[in-house]
């Protein structure tokens, strides 16, 4: 008998999951301490993609840093652009035109749809439902086509700029957006049939990675993952920026705080984003899409070749940038993954003295240990997907 016990007894092992692993969404390295298949402790080891973005920012003019923000959360670059330019505008004390605000709302919500679609698709792929990834990519493609129409780029957009946006919306863009709003609801119903009515999918997510509201707040979880635990907190509603207070939309909240709830939050949020876009497109006012301050917004390119003053303004903008008054500000937006905050310390020059990015993925990843403790190895995959980490953002 004693011999038999020796054979079946298990010992604690440490398993390295990642950094090269197909379901870690990038370069996440998890150190899993396991007893058999059960997780005793999950310790994320991050930093494989660290590029020193904050140090780079200290050496750049304010307007030169916008493209770097695209490379943070590259799945929804508009939100990053928005967080950054809004922070700089707050530091300057700049009020942007109405039309630019509406365009920004549309851009940010489109990017939320793109981000959530990929999050849901990749999550389904990780749990073995590959067709959903292909469906989600098909719909994401429509959104990326709209981005291409708006600014010529698909992933690294740099569309927003301090003082407004880079290009105006035209009729064709509005038409494409309306087309998307017509197509998407039917496609979302397809997902619902394939996933939410799927027993395997539900069993792999329901009751997995449960976190209570109290623990989630204590661990600084934010975004859809926090709302899945029943905390009704969305910066768009509670500290409205741009023109979000003029739109009618709901904040979905979950009850159980498990992976299934976190999935549902994203699913519902796509629908709410569509509602916002619909209203914003309908109310889109006419007028300028940039502030009329030559130091902050350079003149339109064709004018630079014809007009001497415009050429001077363009040259001054590119070579010297603009000054930001001395002081420090923190500005946060509701990015698809949670609270995306930018803290700027300005010493009154053209470059930030210190720029800190409060990135949601980095903070949210802290909860992995809490969620996976006592669960099985296969659940860790669902838990990682439910946090939707993007490592360009996490590692900065």
């Amino acid at each position: 008998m004693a011999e038999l016990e020796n054979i079946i007894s298990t010992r604690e092992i440490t398993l390295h999951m990642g950094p090269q692993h197909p379901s870690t969404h990038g370069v996440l390295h998890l150190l899993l301490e396991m007893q058999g298949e059960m997780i005793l402790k999950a310790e994320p080891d991050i930093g494989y993609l660290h590029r020193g973005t904050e140090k780079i920012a200290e050496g750049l003019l304010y307007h030169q840093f916008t493209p770097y923000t695209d490379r943070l959360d590259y799945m929804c670059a508009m939100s990053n652009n928005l967080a950054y330019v809004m922070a700089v505008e707050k530091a300057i004390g700049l009020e942007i035109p109405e039309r630019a605000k509406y365009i920004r709302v549309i851009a940010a919500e489109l990017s939320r749809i793109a981000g959530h679609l990929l999050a849901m698709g990749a999550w389904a792929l990780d749990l073995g439902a590959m067709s959903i990834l292909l469906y989600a990519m098909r719909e994401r493609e429509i959104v990326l086509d709209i981005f291409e129409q708006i600014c010529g780029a698909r992933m690294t957009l740099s569309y927003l700029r301090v003082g407004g946006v880079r290009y105006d919306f035209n009729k064709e863009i509005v038409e494409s957006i309306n087309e998307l709003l017509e197509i998407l609801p039917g496609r979302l119903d397809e997902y619902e049939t394939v996933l939410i009515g799927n027993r395997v999918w539900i069993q792999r997510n329901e009751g997995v990675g449960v976190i209570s509201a109290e623990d989630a707040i204590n661990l600084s979880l934010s975004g859809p993952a926090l709302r899945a635990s029943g905390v009704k907190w969305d910066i768009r509603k509670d500290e409205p920026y741009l023109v979000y207070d003029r739109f009618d939309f709901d904040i979905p909240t979950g009850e159980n705080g498990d992976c299934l709830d976190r999935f549902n939050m994203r699913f519902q949020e796509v629908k709410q984003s569509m509602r916002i876009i619909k209203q914003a497109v309908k109310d889109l006012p006419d007028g300028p899409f940039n502030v009329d301050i030559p130091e902050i917004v350079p003149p339109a390119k064709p004018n630079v070749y014809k007009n001497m003053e415009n050429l001077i303004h363009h040259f001054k903008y590119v070579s010297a940038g603009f000054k930001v008054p001395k002081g420090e500000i923190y500005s946060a937006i509701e990015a698809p993954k949670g609270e995306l905050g930018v803290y700027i310390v300005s010493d009154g020059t053209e470059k930030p003295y210190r720029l800190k990015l409060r990135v949601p993925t980095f903070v949210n990843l802290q909860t992995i240990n809490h969620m996976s403790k006592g669960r099985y190895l296969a659940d860790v995959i669902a838990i990682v997907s439910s946090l939707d980490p993007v490592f360009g953002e996490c590692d900065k």
Partner: protein
Amino acid sequence: MTPVDKDAVLIDKVKAAFRDKIISTTVYRGEVTHLVCASALRSMCTFLKTDPELRMNFCADVVGVDYMNETPRFEVVYHLYSITRKHRIRLKVRVNEGETIPSVTSIWAGADWAEREVYDMFGIVFEGHPNMKRIYLAEDWEGFPLRKDYPLRGYKDRYNPYGVDREEKD
């Protein structure tokens, strides 16, 4: 809550409770900042979290800033938010090179990684932190990159031919 009520809670109430521990209070672009003594940090954070009118239950971020030519050299900045009361406050603590600062991880567990990041980038040690080690950089990394005296392109070694030559160590 109207702005006046907000000021009454975020400024007057906090000031009344920690009169001699607050070095200065500023309001810039509608954001309230208290510069406090490091010795009072933990008791003040506990007060901010537990007081029914303040309820700062969400620690958004911990940030380090290097003011190289000033003494004390570093500033650690806490961004706090109240999910129930919907207001933000910023606490700042000045700390010199080589000094430690009390950790707030026992008050908000979410400050864990943020404090590790500050240590990683500035070398500020948080006393009482359960796992004080580097988070982004390799464990054997030399120097603290976000300090102002750390060169933008790093130090020269066999992986980084464009870096700056490191001064001889004494």
